[in-house]
């Protein structure tokens, strides 16, 4: 079968438009005046949204840098007990969605929770006799987000440290700088672009967070958009808030792009020598161990233990047919989204490979923009055009049949799948593009000269060669969809629940223990991509003794 280049082009540009539509829809509202609502928002909550969001970003930045960089440095340069274990285990907090860790710590640290109960029973104090940090606060949100987002910084900083030639550090030593000075004056500045990339990824997740801040009652942009859309029913104002948030995200995207480009100039060597690891002993070894063990324990082990306890203790309540329906709903939804994102990614990636003109390249880049855009924003961006479409359909139906047909698109699973594809297409596209990049172009030419058309090359050569890649792309989107909360919450059909939504609802009803089981399943699924990630790191690194 032969599809001409023109058709591939049209297909790709069509898809890019399709995925960019929600973003365009949100921005189009910037020009719809909504002065009364703005005045109201400005007088009441807007200042809160802005200041809370900025404080959250600042706090999380400090948090992830303080946890991520020391761990990355110790891991690349030193040798201490259990170091090999921490190497991959420090990625585990990535499997923990922020809203789940938020419920868990609330349950543990609230007045009625086990920790405060223990303090009271040990000391005999009563309510108000002692000070205890409030979990459900801005500070709490910062802590929760830092605990699960630091692996971004850890991962990229560690890669950067490993890529640095040991020579530059040795040169710095011969020029009279000691180990600490070498770190601050040479290694850290060299790793700065990578650290900034990691930080901007963590911050994108921070501004996209809805579950944590909503649960903690911290008003930020995401909760504000949600409240304005549903509470006030003001779509124009909600869209304008969304546009404002997206501008903030755009700054983060530019920061990431800029730092990735800078990173090219910070490569010190293309040859890697084995880094002679510094053997830590005594108190130093214990210190290094704690620097790695504390974030792991707080960000993963303790909350998982708590979830397991809750899950087991409430299993008799939660494990019924409705729970399995929940699981099935989530799995089917995630599988459908993963599959459709993979198909889109294949068309985009392969289309770009055979037709790499500037227009197509721009189109694929636009199609992948959604990864940075908060689920809340995408949800309303999807609702705007589909609601319009529904209205038009009903006008048409009234005209033709004299009766309305109701809402066809909004509130259907199709809407939800659309939003997931906009949000997660970048994940599968990136994976597919990496996989295609490993196939030599002469393989395509050989296939063509042996009688295959462009679709045949994809079908008989690329797909079998990329089996592993395709599975990875499916898995990554699958897990992302399983964890996704705000878009699902906003767009799901009436009475349609998923694990994430159920956990959110139970937690909001203060039935934290019952939220344990669905939350645990999400975390368990989230571990899969972490394993994949640590495997790919283990096989691709340079400069360490194991190979």
């Amino acid at each position, binding site marked *: 079968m032969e599809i001409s280049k023109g058709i591939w082009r049209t297909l790709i540009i069509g898809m890019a438009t399709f995925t960019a539509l929600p973003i365009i829809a949100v921005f189009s509202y910037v020009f719809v005046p909504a002065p009364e609502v703005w005045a109201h928002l400005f007088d009441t909550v807007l200042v809160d949204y802005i200041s809370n969001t900025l404080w959250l970003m600042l706090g999380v930045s400090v948090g992830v840098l303080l946890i991520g960089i020391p761990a990355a440095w110790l891991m690349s340069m030193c040798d201490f007990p259990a170091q090999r274990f921490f190497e991959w285990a420090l990625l585990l907090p990535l499997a923990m969605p922020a809203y789940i860790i938020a419920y868990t710590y609330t349950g543990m640290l609230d007045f009625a929770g086990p920790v405060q109960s223990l303090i009271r029973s040990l000391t005999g104090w009563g309510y108000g006799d002692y000070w205890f940090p409030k979990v459900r606060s801005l500070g709490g949100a910062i802590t929760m987000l830092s605990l699960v987002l630091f692996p971004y910084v850890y991962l990229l900083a560690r890669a950067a440290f490993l890529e640095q030639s040991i020579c530059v550090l040795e040169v710095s030593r011969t020029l009279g700088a000691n180990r600490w000075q070498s770190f601050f004056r040479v290694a850290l500045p060299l790793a700065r672009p990578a650290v900034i990339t990691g930080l901007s990824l963590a911050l994108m997740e921070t501004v996209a967070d809805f579950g944590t801040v909503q649960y903690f009652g911290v008003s930020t942009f995401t909760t504000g958009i949600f409240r304005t859309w549903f509470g006030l029913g003001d779509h124009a104002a909600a869209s304008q808030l969304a546009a404002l948030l997206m501008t903030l995200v755009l700054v983060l995207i530019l920061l990431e792009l800029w730092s990735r480009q800078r990173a090219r100039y910070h490569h010190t060597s293309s040859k890697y020598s084995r880094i002679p690891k510094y053997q830590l002993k005594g108190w130093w070894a214990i210190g290094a161990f704690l620097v790695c063990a504390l974030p792991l324990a707080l960000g993963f082990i303790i909350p998982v233990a708590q979830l397991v306890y809750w899950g087991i203790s409430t299993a008799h309540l939660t494990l019924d047919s409705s729970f399995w329906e929940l699981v099935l709903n989530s799995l089917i939804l995630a599988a459908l989204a993963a599959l459709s994102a993979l198909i889109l990614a294949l068309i985009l990636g392969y289309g770009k490979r055979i037709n790499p003109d500037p227009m197509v390249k721009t189109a694929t880049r636009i199609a992948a923009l959604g990864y940075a855009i908060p689920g809340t924003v995408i949800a309303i961006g999807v609702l705007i055009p589909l609601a319009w479409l529904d209205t038009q359909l009903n006008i048409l139906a009234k005209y033709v049949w004299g009766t309305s047909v109701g809402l066809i698109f909004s509130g259907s699973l199709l809407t939800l799948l659309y939003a997931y594809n906009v949000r997660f297409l970048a994940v599968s596209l990136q994976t597919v593009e990496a996989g295609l990049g490993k196939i030599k172009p002469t393989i395509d030419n050989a296939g063509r*000269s042996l009688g295959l058309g462009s679709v045949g090359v994809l079908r008989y050569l690329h797909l079998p060669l990329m089996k592993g890649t395709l599975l990875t792309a499916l898995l990554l989107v699958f897990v992302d969809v399983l964890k996704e909360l705000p878009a699902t919450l906003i767009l799901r059909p009436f009475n349609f629940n998923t694990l994430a939504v159920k956990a959110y609802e139970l937690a909001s009803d203060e039935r934290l223990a019952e939220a344990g089981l669905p939350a645990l399943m999400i975390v368990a699924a989230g571990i899969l991509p972490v394993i994949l990630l640590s495997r790919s790191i283990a096989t691709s690194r340079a400069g360490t003794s194991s190979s």
Partner: protein
Amino acid sequence: MSQLSLQNIVIQYGQQVVIHDVSLQVEHGQIGCLLGPSGCGKTTLLRAIAGFEAVTSGQIALGDTIISSPQIHIPPEKRQIGMVFQDYALFPHLTIANNISFGIRQLSKVAQTKRIEQLLELVNLSGYQKRYPHELSGGQQQRIALARALAPKPKLMLLDEPFGSQDVELREILAREVRDILKQEQTTAILVTHDQHEAFAMADEIGVLKAGRLQQWDNPYHLYHRPANAFVAEFIGQGVLIAGEVLDNYTVQTAVGVVSGSLPVGATPHMPLQVLIRPDDIRLVAKAERKAVVISRVFRGAEYLYTLQLSDQKTTILALAPSHQQYEIGETVYFELDMQHLVLVP
């Protein structure tokens, strides 16, 4: 009728013309070669024949079918042209048998099996059906790539630097092997290379390309002994061009003395020309009229290649001598001219 014919091919990327007005013909069963330094456009031309590049003007015909012209572009998979790539491009996920049968999927299983056996025997790799490409050596992979391309009995075979990744010593042997296989299958072929030894070992006719222009399309003997211009003269074989001046209809005065032969039409007395002096035109002898000084020498195993400076103190020529006949640098040597083909270029 020629099996392959290119007429006035021009290929342009935007404003940049990469192939200028190239025409050539290859007869059925012949092996042609596009030879030239890197960046001369030879691979672009090959890709245009295969259908991976469009032509800006001119036309390419295979037999009596036009396969490329500004109006017509038959896609590569419909051209029945086989191709062997520099990196072989064997499909890593398929066995050798499945690689070879890839282009003959439409045949019956029995016919496929038979053709695979026949081709494996031809390339001297019988019994390799079940292996995978990564289990084979570079030379074996190359022969499988050839077998795969031959399987559908293509009307034309294209080979893109097929020996580029092999050891230099092996290339000529492999080129001979591939030539024998192609001849046995009576396949018309075009080879692209920058290595003249490879071209000589394999091709019946060779085209020398420079900056997108075909300098000469001829058989190897003529390329060597009757180069069309100074570029071909210097690119093919070894030798130096030295200045000369026409004396009369048969003789030219040069720094090595008077040389004679048939002069190009229109040569008039006192016209300046260049004369190609190849190392095999110079015979070093014990005593002769002509003499020169050795200024450098390179050991070549069986022989030494000497660079000699003539008595005018500026012209240098090359000479070969058996390695047991040694001369030191600075030594004066005597030589005779043994020029059977006088090569003159304007």
